[in-house]
């Protein structure tokens, strides 16, 4: 599956993609409609009660914090909060759902409308063939607004293990085991408008939504463990057409890469079918990350007919201005605002601001470093955090939160460069030692006998010696070969064991040579 093939298909076909993002509210103490605790894993059926087991007569009562979390998500994503809202029953049979209906929301969800701006840069820009028309920069970078249709609240299902088939698949299984620990966990469903046009846009949109939810602290959004699940509806239409084609729903992508790759595959598959004069079946398809393809679930289920009706066990919700304003006041600084602040207050370049505000933990870490060094050194802090520190995180497979080098130590290192104790080059060495030994920068500098000599008297002495013993080069330099400056700097630094302040060395060399 090459990128070229994707481009070829996208030249004649435009992809129309909408996402459904299910997020378990893992930050809650309890489930959506009962007091059973919310946790991942553990012994089967140990966190269940009559409500989440669907026992007759058990009465579900909504978790107020789950409702608040959903309204917060809506406010963070520019949605309108419904004045009048309620739960509905969605009726279908499946063994992981004990009541044979799911309490969900139908025509009166908590949040309606909204959207996020998604920035596309790098290789992914090429997938958007009409990027010039959407205002792309010369390097291809563009921003697109993806609308949100709605955000509603519902309950999660239990989990099944299929026994006797291959790889735990239901096909060929002899029986299944059901664990209802997850059943009834609050599940927030976000539905996007079908305004996504490329796999890369889908990935960036989902990443942005995840970042907002992480910032709000409503979920750990762990795609591998399934606390965030992204399904995609994708169809193709001829470029220039207005009407949508027949769509397929793709499921089982448990990483952002899988989401991207599954969509790229599905666009190629549908393009091939349509180019050959075939038609697309409206069906659910399963992404197999190992085989890198989607396949039809061929479920024998009947056509969906959920017969939604208002949940009689629960009264409706009204949200007035006071309630909404109270929650709005609880919103933390959101990623876009954070990025803008980094540019405006710290003077960071756009790219650096985007990377730091695009990663909640890294952004928090960066801010702690800035707290230590002060705003005037924020750019130096960004350079170190995005440079050596990020390289170390990648190499160590670590996260900012559990990094061996804390923000206070990093701040100290920046200060030691700023006050001239060591050079930027020496700082790299010190950082490597900090990672290796866990020592404080000062200890390392003392241990290694590192000193940066800024005393111009001492440097002048060495400069004069170096110039005297390289008379030929001095003559060449003065005759116009200014590239030799580096040669002199190197010679002085060598002479001084790398401890001279390069800025002072440069200054003195210029004074002597250009005189």
């Amino acid at each position, binding site marked *: 599956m090459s990128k070229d093939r994707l481009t070829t298909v996208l030249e004649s076909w435009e992809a129309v993609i909408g996402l459904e993002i299910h997020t378990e509210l893992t930050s*809650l*103490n*309890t489930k959506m409609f*009962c*007091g*059973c*605790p919310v946790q991942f894993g553990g*012994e*089967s*059926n*140990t*966190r*269940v*009660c*009559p409500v989440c*087991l669907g026992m007759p007569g058990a009465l579900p*009562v*909504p*978790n*107020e*914090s*789950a*409702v608040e979390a959903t309204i917060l998500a809506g406010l963070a994503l520019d949605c309108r909060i419904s004045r009048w809202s*309620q739960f509905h029953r969605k*009726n279908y*049979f499946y*063994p992981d759902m004990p009541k044979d209906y799911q309490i969900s929301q139908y025509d009166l969800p908590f949040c309606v409308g909204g959207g996020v701006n998604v920035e596309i840069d790098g290789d992914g820009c090429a997938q958007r063939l009409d990027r010039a028309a959407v205002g792309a920069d010369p390097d291809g970078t563009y921003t697109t607004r993806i609308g949100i249709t709605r955000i509603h609240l519902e309950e999660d299902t239990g989990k099944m*293990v*299929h026994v006797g*088939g291959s790889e735990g*698949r*239901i*096909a*060929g*299984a*002899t*029986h*299944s*085991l*059901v*664990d*209802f620990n997850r059943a009834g966990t609050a599940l927030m469903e976000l539905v996007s408008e079908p305004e996504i046009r490329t796999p890369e846009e889908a990935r960036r949109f989902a990443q942005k939504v995840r970042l907002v939810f992480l910032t709000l602290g409503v979920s750990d959004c762990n795609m591998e463990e399934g606390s965030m699940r992204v399904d995609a509806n994708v169809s193709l239409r001829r470029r220039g057409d207005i009407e949508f084609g027949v769509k397929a729903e793709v499921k089982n992508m448990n990483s952002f890469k899988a989401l991207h790759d599954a969509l790229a595959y599905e666009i190629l598959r549908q393009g091939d079918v349509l180019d050959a004069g075939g038609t697309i079946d409206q069906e659910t398809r399963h992404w197999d990350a190992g085989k890198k393809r989607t396949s039809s679930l061929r*479920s*024998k*289920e*009947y056509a969906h*007919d959920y*017969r939604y009706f*208002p949940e*009689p066990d*629960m*009264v*409706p*919700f*009204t949200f007035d201005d006071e309630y909404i304003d109270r929650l709005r006041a609880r919103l933390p600084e959101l990623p876009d605002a954070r990025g803008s602040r980094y540019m405006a207050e710290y003077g960071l370049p756009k790219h650096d601001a985007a990377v730091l505000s695009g990663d909640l933990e890294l952004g928090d870490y960066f801010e702690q470093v800035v707290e230590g060094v002060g705003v005037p050194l924020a750019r130096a802090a960004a350079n170190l955090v995005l440079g050596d520190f990020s390289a170390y995180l990648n190499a160590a497979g670590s996260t900012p939160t559990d990094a061996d080098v804390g923000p206070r130590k990093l701040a100290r290192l920046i200060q030691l460069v700023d006050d001239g104790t060591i050079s930027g080059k020496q700082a790299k060495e010190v950082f490597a030692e900090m990672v290796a030994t866990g020592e404080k920068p000062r200890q390392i500098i003392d241990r290694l006998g590192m000193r940066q000599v800024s005393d111009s008297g001492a440097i002048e002495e060495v400069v004069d010696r170096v110039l005297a013993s390289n008379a030929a080069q001095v003559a060449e330099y003065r005759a116009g070969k200014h590239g030799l400056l580096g040669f002199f700097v190197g010679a002085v630094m060598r002479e001084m064991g790398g401890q001279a302040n390069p800025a002072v060395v440069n200054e003195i060399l210029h004074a002597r040579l250009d005189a």
Partner: protein
Amino acid sequence: MAISEEQVRHVATLARLGLRDEQVAELQVELNDILVQIDRIQALDLTGVEPTTHAAAITNVTRPDVVRPCLPRSEALRNAPEQQDGAFLIPKFGG
């Protein structure tokens, strides 16, 4: 009649009910009787009456996010026809 035999069979399928032919005929009559009552309600002049889904005029009933005791697993599984490793064992389905 408003509800066809085919619709009765469809609804029965959705509800996972296995009906004999004579039961389908009986239910078709009964469901249509219910619809006649609905028609009478729909014929009422309800100008100025707000639609409602509940009899009680109360809203926003919630509970605090506080953990309450769960069932012991033996209790949770007590009515399970079959169980294995603490899970409900169910026969082969779908697939």
